[in-house]
Each structure stands twice: as structure tokens, then as C-alpha cells.
């Protein structure tokens, strides 16, 4: 193998840390990402972790990106190889000309390295062992020591890292000073013994702006607080547990009555997903805003109740943080694979509203909106996140709230309205939008009570198995779903610079990779109009977009192109015109992948003169 010139890049590279689960490296690695942010340089970090607590390999990848690309890039420029178990694979994954950082305490045979990369050895174990005696300290400080060494190699400002350590250990002086000490131990060793900096460097910039750095699950939980959810029932499942955990901690901060100290919320860890959604439905039936958070296997269990919510018309909010299925699948890997399962969850003819946020800021907005929609439409609303947005920190615009905003409690008939003599038929379509009025239990001594059931009933909620009565009700539910089209977030369209017959549809966490892929495709000479779908039911602009383009690519992270299936199903479009672009190995889709898949297809169609790909 020939030597290759070392990669040289400022503020645009990928660092990957290979660690062992349980080694305490997570906080040092996250600090590395945050430190770069403090330089004013955007980052996009990703956790890659096994479904296991200790011992198995984990990776943390930080994409340093002056241009602000927040999707995964693919490839690794600097590998911090701290896990002997995965050494070979880690070394093989480095881009030609890239760098390998490793613990050189024990000598390694030269066959374990590559000629086309720069190898940087730091005797981390030797340094820690000579400084610390306690085994746990040795383990933890080793992480900070490599952080220190990296800061020298990448020419980072140590003050900014010290500042972060200061914030993390505020009030814990001993921990603070010992961490700063470890940082400099690594940094000084590198400065004295290595050629610093290497070709990769971090330079101060101003590209972060006022953006915030937050995980999607935490943002969604905050959306539930702002959206007025008072009841959360859940059952632990990765990657959704942190939604309920974040909701709990947000509620502890913001939802206690200052005088009595009592809680203005109730959180129940259900015995399973059946109970969790049952609690949500019972609470919503009784006029409170309630939600559950789960992932694919939980959705499977909830489907019976979801059918009840649809047919008996009871609001419910489900946050589904998707992971790779089917069955237990790959519990800690990301996918967008529950689209069909959620859109048509439960037996019989059902259709449900799905919301697809692209980042934490939208997760916050859509979560809050989900409660308005659930009450307005009296049905289940799914907030469809995935592990990639849910469990990773993302840079996004600051969260916003309009203090004048009131909750939309939907069509609720009050005691006064009943007193006025308003005709109350629980399933009457008074306004022609398919949405009936409901009453809360306990409203009026003699008027407005009704029986809620999952069995067929007439417009006045009286049990009936009459075919015409059943069909009438089912048609009204279709009308209601049509009404939903105009209430849910609309798709966002962005047109190519030049008119084109080709379009691309994408959604959710694919968004940043898609945005970046457009640039790569343009460089290859391909022009594409884009439509980001943000909800199901599809707005009429989806049909227009399909009509305006000869071919539309549908980019998604599942095997069977589920969004495409849904579009075909709901729009009656010729499937040939919708080209699936799928990625489903559990890692987040990258711009490179999208650009190659679409580019190759376009080349094949000979839509542009074939050009040599620029590497």
C-alpha cells in the first residue's frame, strides 16, 4: 500500500471514539463535542451503542462541520481507538490519509497499523497508572487525559474545555480541579512529545449562532410540558425511555405548586404498554392531556387500544421513538420503520395522524401541537421520532413559545351549552367536518352523559349493529381524517435552481443528510425539487408535487420504503414513478449515500450527460 498524504482540514472532519460500554468515556467524549461548539464551530455527534450495559463496544462520532451539515457524513478522519476488541475494524474504517490515535503503553506489531494513515501513540495507561492508584479513577481520568492530548493535536483552546469542566462540576471543587489537572496531563504530554497540531484543526469561528444543542427526546418531553400534558404513562424501552425521564425532570422543575409543593402532573410507570396507553385513554376521556412514549414493540402491544381511540374517538398522544425492527430487531439502532404500523395501527379500517419532526426544535413544536390535535380531532396522534434524533444531541434553532397561546381543547360541550338546549349527540357531525362534540364525565346532572364503547353505535352513542348506522359512522371518520389534512403541519417544498422533472420526498431525521445531498447532487449536475413531508394525512400539495414531476425519489430508512407505500396507497399514484431510496442497516443515512443512490439512478436514466464523479 502506498503512503497517502495526511488529510489536512480545518473545521471539517470526523472524529470517532471507539470505547467499551461502561468505561465512563461518554462524558469526556461529549465534552469534546461541546468544546468544539464553544469554538463557534458546529458539530453533529452520534452515539453508536450496543443493546448491552457493560463490556460491548460503543462508538461516539463527532462530525466537525463548519458548513453546519448535521447529518452523518460517513468515513472517519481521526479514530480514537480505545477498544482492543474492535481494533481491526476501527483501523480499517479510517479514510486514507487519516489519523489513528491509540494508547501506546503496550507495543503493537506493525501489522496492526496501515501505511496510509498517521499513527499517533500516547501511553495513556502508563500516564494514568503513574498518577492515580484507584482503579476507577484510572479508568475515568484516562478519558480526560486523551481529551487533553486531542486538544493539543487539534489545536483547541484549553480554556474552553476548562470552562465546560467548570460548568459540569460546579460546586464540586475537588472533582473540578482533578479533572482540569488530568486534562493538562494529557495536553502537556502531547505538546512535549508529539508534533502538534496535526493536519486536522479546530479554528475559532462564529457559525453556531444562537442555536441550541439538545436531544430530540428531551425537546419532545419539554414540548409535552409546554403543551399542557399532565399525565404520562409509560413502560421502559430504548430509545424512548429518556422521553419519560426528561418529562419527569422537567415537571419536577416547572410543575409544582409553589405554595403546597404538590404536583400538577402524574407520571405512572405502567406494568406494560397495554396499561400505559390504557391510562392515557382513560385520562384523555376524562379531559386531561395525556401521553405515552414508546418504540416499535410497544406500538405492537398498543394497537388494540389505538383502535379504540380511533373508533370511540378519544384523544391520545403517542411518541414513538423508532428503532430497527421487526420484533426486538436492533434495539439501539435507528430506523424509520414504523410508518405503516402506525398509520394503520389496529384491526379493521383505521387511519391515524402521524407527525414527523426533523430535529429537536420541531420535536418540541410538534409535541406541543400533538395535544391540540389530539383534542381537536379526538383521536390518536403519533409523534414519530427515531433514535437518531431522539438520543443524539443536535444543533437546532432555539425553542420558541408564544405566551398568548391557549390550548385548543377541541369540541367540548359544557354544562352551560347543554343548559342552553344545544342538541347533544356524541357522534353527530354538527359542523360537517366529521368532528363531533364530546362532554367530560360529571358535566351535568341530567344532560350530556353518554356511553363510550368500542362497539358500533348510532349518532347518539346508543349501541347499534345496524349496517347503515355503522357505515354512516365510518364515513364520518373518513371526513374527520380529511379535516385533519389542513390541521397538521404542511409539507415544505424547496425547488432546484433550474426547472426539473425530478423530485425527492423525504421526512424526519433524514432531513439534514438530504439537505447536504442536494449540494452533492448539484455538483454532479442533477437538479431536484424537494418536498419534506411533515405529517400524515398528506396535504394536497403532496399530490400536486407528484403530478408536477416525472419521477420522485422517496428517501427513507427502512427496507420496504414504507412512506412510499403510504403515498401510493393514499394517492392512487403509479408506483413506477416513485423511486425508493432506502437505507436500513441501523446507522443513520448519510448525504453520500443519498447522493450516490439518486445520482446513479439519474445517470442511469441519462437525464444529464454522464460526468465523471469527482472524488
Amino acid at each position, binding site marked *: 500500500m502506498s503512503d497517502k498524504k495526511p488529510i489536512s482540514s480545518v473545521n471539517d472532519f470526523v472524529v470517532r471514539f471507539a470505547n467499551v460500554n461502561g468505561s465512563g468515556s461518554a462524558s469526556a467524549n461529549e465534552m469534546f463535542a461541546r468544546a468544539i*461548539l464553544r469554538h463557534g464551530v458546529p458539530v453533529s455527534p452520534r452515539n453508536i451503542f450496543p443493546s448491552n450495559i457493560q463490556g460491548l463496544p460503543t462508538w461516539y462520532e463527532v462530525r466537525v462541520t463548519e458548513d453546519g451539515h448535521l447529518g452523518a457524513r460517513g468515513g472517519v478522519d481521526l479514530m480514537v481507538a480505545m477498544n482492543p476488541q474492535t481494533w481491526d475494524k476501527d483501523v480499517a474504517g479510517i479514510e486514507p490519509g487519516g489519523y489513528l490515535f491509540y494508547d501506546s503503553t503496550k507495543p503493537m506489531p506493525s501489522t496492526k497499523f496501515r501505511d496510509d494513515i498517521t499513527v499517533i501513540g500516547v501511553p495513556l495507561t502508563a500516564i494514568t497508572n503513574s498518577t492515580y492508584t484507584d482503579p476507577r479513577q484510572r479508568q475515568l481520568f484516562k478519558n480526560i487525559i486523551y481529551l487533553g492530548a486531542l486538544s493539543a493535536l487539534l489545536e483547541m483552546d484549553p480554556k474552553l474545555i476548562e470552562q465546560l469542566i467548570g460548568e459540569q462540576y460546579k460546586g464540586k471543587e475537588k472533582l473540578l480541579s482533578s479533572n482540569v489537572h488530568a486534562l493538562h496531563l494529557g495536553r502537556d504530554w502531547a505538546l512535549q512529545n508529539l508534533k502538534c497540531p496535526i493536519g486536522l484543526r479546530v479554528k475559532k469561528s462564529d457559525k453556531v449562532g*444562537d*442555536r*441550541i*444543542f439538545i436531544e430530540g427526546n428531551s425537546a419532545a418531553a419539554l414540548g409535552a410540558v409546554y403543551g*399542557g400534558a*399532565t*399525565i404520562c*404513562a409509560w413502560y421502559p424501552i430504548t430509545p424512548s425511555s429518556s422521553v419519560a425521564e426528561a418529562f419527569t425532570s422537567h415537571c419536577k422543575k*416547572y*410543575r409544582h*405548586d409553589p405554595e403546597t*409543593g*404538590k*404536583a*400538577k*402532573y*402524574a*407520571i*405512572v410507570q405502567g*406494568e*406494560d404498554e*397495554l*396499561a400505559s*396507553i*390504557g*391510562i*392515557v*385513554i*382513560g*385520562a384523555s*376521556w*376524562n*379531559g*386531561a392531556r*395525556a401521553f405515552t412514549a414508546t418504540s416499535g414493540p410497544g406500538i405492537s402491544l398498543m394497537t388494540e*387500544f389505538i383502535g*379504540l381511540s380511533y373508533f370511540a374517538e378519544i384523544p391520545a398522544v403517542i411518541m414513538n421513538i423508532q428503532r430497527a425492527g421487526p420484533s426486538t430487531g436492533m434495539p439501539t439502532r435507528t430506523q424509520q420503520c414504523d410508518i405503516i404500523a402506525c398509520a394503520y395501527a389496529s384491526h379493521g379500517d383505521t387511519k391515524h395522524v402521524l407527525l414527523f419532526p426533523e430535529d429537536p426544535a420541531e420535536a418540541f413544536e410538534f409535541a406541543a401541537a400533538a395535544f391540540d390535535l389530539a383534542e381537536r380531532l379526538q383521536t390518536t396522534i403519533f409523534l414519530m421520532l427515531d433514535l437518531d434524533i431522539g438520543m443524539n444531541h443536535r444543533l437546532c434553532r432555539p*425553542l*420558541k*413559545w*408564544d405566551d398568548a*397561546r*391557549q*390550548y385548543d381543547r377541541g369540541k367540548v360541550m359544557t354544562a352551560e351549552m347543554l343548559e342552553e338546549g344545544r342538541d347533544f349527540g356524541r357522534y353527530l357531525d354538527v359542523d360537517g367536518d366529521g368532528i363531533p362534540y364530546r*362532554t367530560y*364525565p*360529571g358535566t*351535568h*346532572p*341530567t344532560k350530556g*352523559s*353518554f*356511553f*363510550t*364503547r*368500542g362497539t358500533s353505535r348510532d349518532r347518539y352513542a*346508543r*349501541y347499534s*349493529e345496524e349496517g347503515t348506522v355503522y357505515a354512516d359512522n365510518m364515513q364520518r371518520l373518513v371526513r374527520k381524517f380529511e379535516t385533519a389534512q389542513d390541521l397538521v403541519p404542511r409539507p415544505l417544498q424547496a425547488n432546484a435552481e433550474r426547472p426539473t422533472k425530478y423530485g425527492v420526498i423525504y421526512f424526519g431525521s433524514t432531513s439534514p443528510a438530504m439537505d447536504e445531498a442536494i449540494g452533492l447532487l448539484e455538483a454532479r449536475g442533477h437538479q431536484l425539487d424537494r418536498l419534506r413531508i411533515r405529517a400524515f394525512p398528506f396535504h394536497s400539495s403532496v399530490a400536486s408535487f407528484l403530478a408536477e414531476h416525472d419521477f420522485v425519489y422517496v428517501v427513507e430508512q427502512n427496507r420496504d420504503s414504507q412512506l412510499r407505500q403510504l403515498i401510493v396507497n393514499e394517492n392512487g399514484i403509479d408506483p413506477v414513478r416513485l423511486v425508493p431510496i432506502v437505507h436500513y442497516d441501523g446507522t443513520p443515512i448519510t448525504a453520500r449515500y443519498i447522493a450516490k443512490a439518486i445520482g446513479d439512478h439519474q445517470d442511469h436514466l441519462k437525464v444529464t450527460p454522464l460526468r465523471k464523479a469527482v472524488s
Partner: protein
Amino acid sequence: MTYIAKPKFHHPGLKKNELGYTHRDYEGKISTLCAGCGHDSITASIIEACYELSIEPHRVAKISGIGCSSKTPDYFLGNSHGFNSVHGRMPSVLTGANLANRDLIYLGVSGDGDSASIGFGQFAHSIRRGVNMTYIVENNGVYGLTKGQFSATADRGSKSKKGVTNTDNAIDLVAIALQLGATFVARSFSGDKSQLVPLIAAAIGHKGASFIDVISPCIAFNNHAGSTKSFDYVREHNDAVNRLDVLVGRDPIAVDYAPGTVQVVEQHDGSKIALRKIDADYDPHDRLGAQTFLAKHAAKGQIVTGLLYVDPDAEDLHAHLNTVETPLNALEADTLCPGSAVLDKINASLR
């Protein structure tokens, strides 16, 4: 259509309770169950108990699962909201409803198939959480609505209508409720209204998880010789530990029973239960004693009825969660939403 409205006619001479309501105000639609079904007698007892307690009918939420028993909420308290949910899942729906509005009275009606099989988990967890409810299982040992299959409460050795012998062990929901920490546990018989009515009234007054297992023979599928849930069998093997009267808070206690044979239990809501002992040694405040007593009698084939356990100082789920007194469903944006100023601070902390 199986829906039959009851005529609204009220006889002017009908007796009225403290709130001015008559019996009629506590009735619902006409039952569509088989004539003679034990469940209808339980319906009548619920109506009677609510009438006697002078409950405002619309302040009750009645929630059930699926089964003949679960249909019954349609047949009482026609002015209250009912919820016929899905098979075995009444407890979670009731728990959610209760969390949303702590001010209503929650009546959960279920069957032995509903609660001891498909819903066994939900039954257990709602009890262990201490949800403030009256949970009634109308226990006939069979699946009525799906035509007579054994349920999990059918005794081992008992016979189906077709003569098949049940070889599985039975689940005793009362024993389980005791073990799970229910703070009011009773068993009764649908054919014994004088025992059942005050039990239901006392359970409604109880603040915590009240559980009543009511043996309720199924005329269609489980009322034959060889069944241990038939009218005859229950009458012959019924061993009551006590009888009770419920005295609503405001009533003076005029206890005219012989001293020592009556025990007065005062509940959170001020109501008092006057327990007339039949078994002089039975102590309804002793959870462990109740469990042993029950097991010993079950071994002898006896059905112990009465108020088996009560903890008058019980706390409910709202107390455990320390929720505000205002029902959560009455809180609005002004008190729930932390507002934009707080959000700005949150944003600042995320940079």
C-alpha cells in the same frame, strides 16, 4: 337493535333520598342479559347503594371491560358517563380517568374472565397502586358472553354444563387482592342483596383500592349440579364473617346491637361502617389473619363472605403521587405552561 330505553315516567309517590332523587334516577337502560342472570342482581344492588348514599349520579364514572358483566354499567346510573373499554383493560382506563379528575367516584365493573385471565395483570397493578375506586368482579366461573368456557376462577374439579371437569387450579381474586395490598376487600353473593348493598356503599366511601368479588351465577352456562358457582352451591357453602350497615357521616350512630358484637369503622369521608360480627373471632383489620382464614375455609370448600379486610386510614394513588387537589383536567395553560421567559433560560442553558 338491542337498545331499549326505559320509560321516563316517575311515580309521584316514589321515595326520595336526601338529594331528592328517587330510585329511578339511579337506573339505566333495560338489561339485555338472560333473565335470572346474577349480574342483574348486582346491578340492582349498585342502584340501591348509590341511592342510599345519595350520590349525585352524574358524579360517578362507570368503567368496564368486555363480557356480559361488563355490559351492566349501561343498566345503572343512566345519567353518568360510562366506558365499555376493551377486554381485560378496564383497570388502566379507570386509573387514567381517576388521575385526570380525582373528584368523581369511580366504579369499575368486570367479569372473572375479564379480570382473572386477560386482565389479570391490570387487575393486580391497579390494586397495588391504590387507585381510589370500587372494583367489582361479577364472578360466575365461566365466560358468559362467549358461551360457557371455563374461566380462571372455576374451581378445580368443578364441572361445565357439558360435563367436562376443570383440571386447572382456580385463581382466588380475593386472596390475590389481599396479597397485593387492597385496602378494602370483600366477597359477596349476587343473591344476597342485604349483604351486598352495604358492602358496595362502604366500598364507595373507602378512599383507596376497594375490591369486591361477587359470586354471580350464570343461568345459561354455570348453574348446574357440579358447578361451584351455582345459586344452590353458593347458598349451601356460604359462610359469612360479618354483616354490615353503612351510616353516612351526618347520621347519628344509633347502635342498638349488643356490645361486643358490633365494631364501628370510620372512613375518610366521614361515613361509618357498623360491622355486625357473625364470627366473633374474625378481625377485619388483620390482613394476614384474613388470608389464613380464607385459605382454611377454601380448603374445606366454604365460601367466606363479608367485609374481609379494611384499612380505614388507606391512602390512594393521588396521595402517593402528591398531586394537587384541583383535578388535573381542570388545569389550563396559565398554570401548566412555564412560558417563554423560562424557555429563554432553558435555551441559554443549552448552548
